[in-house]
């Protein structure tokens, strides 16, 4: 049960940095002096050295903590449609319902030129094909595959671009049902009474 306090436990154990304060302090005006910084390479969307299976396992554990889903985005950094996915995320249809803060743990698994993580993709039923990346797989909190869709299936009138409306519909259809707070709350009270303990009642959100 203490796993429900995982963020706090991780923070206390030094494995996770403290999150931002509950209420953000007022923003200060930007200082007049701007320090020039050397140009940095843009962050790669798909970590080309990561272990995809481990990435997925970590995401499943995090999703289970919040009782939400995992969205695996199988793709490659040099694929234009894959590289443009962050723009799709910012579309109102996607950002409005807060799919990626509240409903899904999103991970990017690099499949290179269809020459990486193919066994992992196969294990999760991802149907990878040239010209159809990114491919999306929805997993439940136990790691079971619930759905999959290729970029071709989620493209709009322009086949080279994902249609935010179609992506939003896909995400909405497969998101986890809203949990019921009452049964676990009552169960915790009952367990605490039985064990002579207290209840650590923690209000939070997946983000």
């Amino acid at each position, binding site marked *: 049960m203490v796993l429900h306090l995982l963020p706090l436990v991780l923070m206390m154990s030094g494995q996770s940095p403290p999150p931002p304060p509950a209420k953000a302090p007022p923003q200060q005006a930007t200082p007049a002096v701007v320090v020039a910084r050397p140009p940095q390479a843009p962050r790669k969307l798909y970590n080309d050295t990561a272990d995809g299976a481990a990435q997925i396992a970590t995401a499943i554990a995090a999703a289970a903590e919040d009782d939400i889903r995992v969205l695996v985005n199988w793709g490659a950094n040099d694929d234009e449609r894959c590289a443009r996915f962050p723009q799709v995320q910012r579309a109102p249809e996607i950002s409005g319902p807060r799919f990626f803060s509240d409903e899904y743990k999103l991970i990017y698994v690099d499949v290179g030129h269809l020459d990486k993580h193919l066994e992992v993709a196969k294990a999760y039923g991802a149907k990878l094909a040239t010209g159809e990346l990114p491919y999306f797989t929805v997993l439940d909190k136990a790691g079971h595959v619930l759905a999959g869709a290729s970029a071709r299936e989620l493209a709009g009138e322009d086949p080279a671009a994902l249609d935010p409306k179609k992506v939003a519909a896909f995400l909405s259809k497969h998101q986890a049902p809203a949990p019921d707070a009452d049964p676990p709350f009552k169960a915790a009270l009952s367990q605490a009474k039985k064990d002579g303990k*207290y209840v650590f009642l923690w209000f939070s959100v997946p983000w």
Partner: protein
Amino acid sequence: MASKDVAPLLAREFVAVKVDYDRAKGAKEIEKLYIDKEQGLPWFAFLDGDGKALTHSTGPKGNTGFPVQPDEIVHFKTMLKTVKKHLTDQDIAFLVTSLEEASKKK
């Protein structure tokens, strides 16, 4: 330190229940049992087995949320001392030190 050191200590004193404030049905109703206005998230309380709140994360300066600042950590320590039944003073000192060390890494 590893979380395996922190988690068992908390489990000795508490049964934890996390309520997804945004998504869970009935979350707001449970919140209303304990607070009358929004406090920011995360927010937490220690309850007895009858559901009575003995102390909560709103300290003198507001909701401590994740205790990071010195006064927030002090409030968390006070909370633990308020309810301690199974935790020793040494356990509480360990938990407080864990928070202090974590806050230094910020």
